[in-house]
């Protein structure tokens, strides 16, 4: 058997990033995935890992506003980045964000495992398309898998969230 197996851990990398409004100054191993940094070191377990190869979308978070599969990004790539996870949506008092509320009101979740990824993908979509129609939703979230709902109510939820947020904005302008 080989006696030359390298056991020396590679040097850690300094990463300064902001997660859900809190700034962090961290030393991470080069191979640490963003998902594992969030779930492990930062204790933000709302981001879920379904496949660890970028197919299912459960681990979707926003990196500088862009929906990103946190299982495919190294934390070391993110020096200076701003990350948002599902934990940023609701209030500390348990109040729900309008997107979460729309999923609740339209039965857009069952087991809830894929839901954080769906919610963060929705955040990105609604930044770009204020009142998406079902085709817009399928285009944006078609790569996020859900095994429970059959998707129909997720599509409905996202459309409803768009309407709710638009109404909120319009109301604020009046």
């Amino acid at each position: 058997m080989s006696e030359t197996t390298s056991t020396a851990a590679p040097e850690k990398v300094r990463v300064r990033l902001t997660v859900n409004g809190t700034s962090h100054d961290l030393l991470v191993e080069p191979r640490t995935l963003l998902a594992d940094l969030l779930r492990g070191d930062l204790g933000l377990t709302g981001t879920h890992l379904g496949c660890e190869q970028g197919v299912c979308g459960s681990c979707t978070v926003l990196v500088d506003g862009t929906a990103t599969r946190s299982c495919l990004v190294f934390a070391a790539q993110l020096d200076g980045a701003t990350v948002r996870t599902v934990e940023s949506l609701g209030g500390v008092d348990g109040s729900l964000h309008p997107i979460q509320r729309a999923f609740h009101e339209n039965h857009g979740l069952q087991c809830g495992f894929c839901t954080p990824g769906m919610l963060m993908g929705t955040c990105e979509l609604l930044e770009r398309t204020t009142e998406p129609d079902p085709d817009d939703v399928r285009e944006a979230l078609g790569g996020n898998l859900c095994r429970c709902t059959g998707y129909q109510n997720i599509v409905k939820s996202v459309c409803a969230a768009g309407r709710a947020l638009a109404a909120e904005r319009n109301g604020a302008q009046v």
Partner: protein
Amino acid sequence: MSTVEDRPTTATTGSPREGERRWVGRSVPRKEDPKLLAGRATFVGDVTLPGMLHGAVLRSPHAHARIVSIDTSAAEAIPGVAAVLTGAQAAELVNPMPAFCAEPVPQTAVAIERVRYPGEAVAIVAATDRYIAEDACAAIRVEYEVLPAVVDPEAAMAPDATRIHETLDSNVAFHRTLDFGDVEGDLARAHTVVRTRARWHRMGAQPMETAGAVASWDPFDKSMTVYSNSNFHNFLPWAFAGMLGVSTNRLRMIPCAVGGSFGSKHFITKVLAIAGALSKATGRPVQYLEDRVDNIAANDNVGCDRIYDAELALAEDGEMLGLTLRIIDDYGAYFQFAHGQHGNAMAQPTGPYRISSLRYDVSCVLTNKVQQGFFRGAGADPGNFVLERLVDKAAEQLGIDRAEIRRRNFIRPDQFPFKTPPGNVYDSGNYAAVLDKALELAGIDDWRAEQERLRAEGRYLGIGLATCQERTGYNASEWWFLYDNPPLPATSTPESVKMDVDAMGGVRVEVGCPLWGNSPETVVSQVVAEEFGIDPADVSVTYADSTTGAMSAGPGGSRLTIMLSGATRGAARTIRDKMIRIAAHAMEMDPADVECVDGTFRAKGAPGTSMSMADIGMRAHLFFHDTPEDESSGLVAVHTYDHPYSTPPSADRKDMGAFYPMVSHACHIPIVEVDPETGVVTLRAYYAVNDCGTVMNPTLVEGQIVGGIVQGIGAALMEEYRYGEDGALDTPTFREYLVPSMHEVPEIVVEHLETPSPFTEYGVKGAGEGGRLVAPTAIASAVDDALKPLGVWVDELPMTPERVVGMVTDAREGRP
């Protein structure tokens, strides 16, 4: 022998009539949602304990091989690695996995000496983090002597086939022929016998969350605490304790939120054994979470894998006489859960029809593939596929409209309760009404016109139709009742809740089941609200660990709403009656004159005098001397609800007894368009009419049905475990094993008919599996209808593009 006269007296006696119900039947918002939406539910991957290590598994790349040697020294030398265990070493710490009534096919969580399927565990590691644990797996050196892989189940049956287990004298782990009714007579008197050879390939549940466990061994009091996403922590904890080498009263299993199961996480014995062995080896808590490859390759994810030779005997007018099913089922390398899926299929093999005889001939065959577990449908899914295909074929051959042939053969509403040839009883139904409603909902004439129009353009639109049963409220007797020996009695597969009303009138319910993606908190709250007249939002529901001692089999076999309704209502009635007695004592009245309305206890018809829940709660808790004589303090009830109607099989197995008698029914009409050149099947629309008795919560039931239909679309068109000739698994990730995405799903319209069950509280039946039990065969019928001009007959699922092109080519070239 059981008769339908053995059935229980109507359970709904004394229940409020439908119009009087306030909470049962309403789309109460789901109580489980907020914590899931916030990312704050605790899944097993979210559990961390002080000093916790992380497990990983080295898996066999070969389907069948002898393990010549394993060298773990390099792995052990990696900093952070706490333990590396081979199968032999793990076997010193934990016992073989429990064989649930199976023939003696020994199985350990980590292979010893020989691997029998691709992905079987060869060694396991615990390390300070998962990355290091996986490094260690990569550093383990295994020398294999590759053996011939047995892949084809029919070839596996040959006497000279390579043996999967040397302890068995054949790869046929189980064979039995059961005749019910006059099978030979019905075949002889038939005008027409339609036949099909049908193939249902193996598919898997593929929940978005994999299976996992955190095991923590305490070497001082020899106890173990296990967090997991198993469903059976309150049903079979004693079996898990035996496997983990812990005395049954020193195992504490704590349920976590579960990211979907669809049948695959009932047991998760491998995961429990791996985490348990690593914790014992290291003296530290160990978390083992399957990754996706672990889950697809090695979990108990896989459903039926069957070849059917089936015959339906009919009279000239289309009357269905008898059914024969000869089934070869590829069980993979182990037989841990025995032939339960065939016991299950005994619930409804003759469907909604008056078929008077049945021959069921089953061979359970071992091959070099991962073992079967359970997947939504659990054996009745291919049964529905084959029966409905035969019915369509009979309609074709006899020149009878396919809706009409069904109508002629449906069990009529006045024939319930109806005893089927194998003995199971159907409680209630109105199948013709469901069919009529579905035809109307689909606007079938408009679609026929559209089909004509498109055909003129050379396009192929198809209209599917299937009318199927959904047996609900399972009874675990099905796991063993195909065996005569040992002659195990029938079980009742109970469900328990513990309820209390505190001194301030607050209602709390502890359920024995886990949160598996369904809605136990909402259902329990609706029932409590119904019984006390309070707001469901005010009811607190928590999840019990395995130390409460209250039996619960949890979700599965579309049972949970039935069983939780029974358990919760039972507990609520016990407590409510005691509160009525206390209130009557306080108000100096006869208990018979006191009623509970809107959360208050008052003189019947005289709202002026009343006591609140809190008034009575405080008395019951603190003021024993002010309560009636013979009443103890407190307001606590544990209610265990046994299966409402089960009877044992007869000794000669001519009658399997009633075991699955709450039978829902559905008619599905999918509309597809097929491109015969590319083989692509596109769903254009989908209509479903469902009768699951009293609908507890319409929004949630529709969610189950739509979710099940989409899994059925996967079963019909995409999902399949594929193996190479050498036995290699060609579909180990979501890149190869395709599940439906948003793009494959049409608009699905669901409507209900409600025929209450006479056997259950409120008349509810189950609704968890119906979508997937009906959709595959309905879509097969639609593809058939689309390609009828080309002479295609669908008898194999899934209808992947390759298979559709193959069918079209075969039909064009005149091959059968």
